[in-house]
């Protein structure tokens, strides 16, 4: 149980002929892979010599469909990008269209959006903690605890948006409907109960020696590599790069809240887990402030159009700090009811690009943990 990688260094792995290696296809039907992701791994013993990710099994032509549909009809499709956190996707897309058409968002809607986005962050990071334990072979206990809390938030979403996951809630210029009576109170009750739950999860995970030895010094890359690879989100911050779009390029009303960005040092899998836990604590802080300050007013801009929406000719890129990283939407309008070009910058997909660099020279078992620590959702990778 001693994680001393030096004995198993990649540099010591002798160069072998291809036919001496064991070629294993992990996925698309494999119990470890998230969704239908596939890795073609060449093993020397159990040491990874090469790893080729294969994806596209869940490709749904999202971008092309969006170019042939009205602006509003793409909104429900964004739910299905990263289906763990649909509301942040909604926000990113709504923001892009608002930028394109120059639509104002009322105060109350901004607060609602912040509350929903931070709840989504809680969902994502909680589920992540459960999933990574599953990847390490724990028999689902952490996952069940995580999903129990996630269910509570999903109940709130259902009450507000009508759907647990596929919310389709944000509209250009606000939100679809106002908060139901008593909803804000329920959120603050949930936020108050979330701290103890996080304490429990930390007891279960953070000090666990097996988890420590499985995750420490596994899958670390230098800051430079991560930045050059375009990695964003908790993965980048775990390596100590202070890059959070909520601070770097504040959108919505994030500059009104007092919160901090946790940064790690080494960027290994353990730091990635820890950063997510710390981010959840910060999200709770944001949620408390937002709930306190929630103003009255319209939930959508009164002049926002639902039918016959045609933004002026132009181009817009809007990005938010999604739970998994920078989520951006790039839209080009030719003045018609459909976008001329519609492009998503998916954090999962881009974070996945350095998978092989992280895995080389490590064990097969580490590959699974590293893939888990990247936190991908195949809906977003394959689009």
């Amino acid at each position, binding site marked *: 149980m001693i994680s001393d990688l030096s004995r198993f260094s990649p540099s010591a792995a002798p160069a072998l002929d291809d036919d001496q290696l064991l070629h294993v296809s992990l996925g698309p039907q494999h119990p470890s892979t998230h969704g239908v992701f596939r890795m073609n791994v060449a093993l020397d013993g159990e040491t990874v010599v090469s790893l080729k990710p294969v994806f596209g099994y869940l490709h749904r032509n999202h971008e092309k469909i969006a170019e042939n549909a009205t602006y509003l009809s793409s909104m429900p499709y964004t739910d299905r990008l990263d289906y763990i956190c649909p509301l942040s996707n909604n926000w990113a897309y709504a923001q892009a269209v608002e930028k394109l058409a120059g639509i104002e968002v009322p105060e109350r809607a901004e607060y609602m959006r912040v509350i929903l986005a931070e709840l989504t962050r809680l969902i994502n990071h909680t589920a992540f903690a459960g999933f990574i334990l599953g990847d390490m072979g724990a028999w689902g206990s952490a996952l069940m605890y995580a999903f129990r809390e996630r269910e509570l938030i999903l109940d709130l979403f259902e009450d507000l948006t009508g759907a647990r996951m596929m919310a389709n809630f944000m509209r250009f210029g606000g939100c679809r409907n106002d908060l139901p009576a008593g909803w804000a109170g329920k959120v603050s009750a949930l936020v108050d109960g979330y701290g103890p739950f996080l304490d429990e999860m930390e007891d279960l995970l953070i000090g666990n020696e097996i988890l420590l030895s499985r995750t420490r010094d596994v899958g670390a890359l*230098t800051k430079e*590599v991560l930045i050059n690879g375009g990695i964003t989100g908790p993965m980048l911050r775990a390596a100590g790069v202070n890059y959070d779009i909520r601070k770097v390029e504040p959108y919505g009303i994030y500059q009104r809240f007092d919160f901090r960005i946790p940064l790690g040092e080494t960027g290994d899998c353990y730091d990635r887990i820890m950063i997510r836990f710390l981010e959840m604590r910060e999200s709770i802080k944001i949620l408390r402030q937002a709930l306190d300050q929630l103003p009255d007013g319209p939930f959508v801009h009164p002049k926002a159009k639902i039918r016959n929406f045609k933004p002026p000719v132009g181009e817009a890129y809007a990005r938010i700090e999604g739970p998994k990283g920078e989520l951006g939407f790039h839209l080009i309008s030719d003045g018609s009811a459909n976008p001329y070009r519609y492009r998503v910058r998916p954090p999962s997909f881009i974070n996945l690009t350095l998978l092989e660099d992280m895995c080389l020279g490590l064990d097969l078992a580490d590959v699974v943990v590293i893939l888990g620590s990247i936190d991908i959702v195949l809906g977003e990778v394959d689009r």
Partner: protein
Amino acid sequence: MIPLIPLLILSPLILLAALGAVWNARPVHAALLLALALALTAGLYLTIGADFIGLVQFMVYVGAVAVLIVFSLLITRPGDEAEELARRPGAAVSGLACVLPVATVLLYAVSHTPDLSSGASESPTLPLQTLGKALFTDYAPAVLAVGVLLTAVMVGAVLFARDPDKKPPTPPGP
């Protein structure tokens, strides 16, 4: 009286398994047949009342030696080298050189054993304590020599398996 029936059943089986182990072209099958031969030999010991020897034979030879052979086959993935080795001109000579002394010793031992069917009327059961005492008093030098040999082998194996250059993994640069 040594039970004759198990001997008659087991000995041909042991011989067959041993011959199979020698002649089988597939190394894994040969190793498994060797394990079978060793296990059957353990059975032979058990039938003549040498329980301790039988069980130790089973545990050490089937459980450890055969498994190690099999394991080394697994990690080395032998291809055609085995056949190639067998076709070498010196193979027969070196094989004979190994077999002859062993066979001589065995034949000598068998021919000098007193007639068991008349002499030992019942199977001699040796108490474990006696065995242990004998091992650590009369045969202590032999035990020590074996211990030294095994230690040397183990140290050698550790040194052999050690990685010569211990560099920490450096993440790939930009």
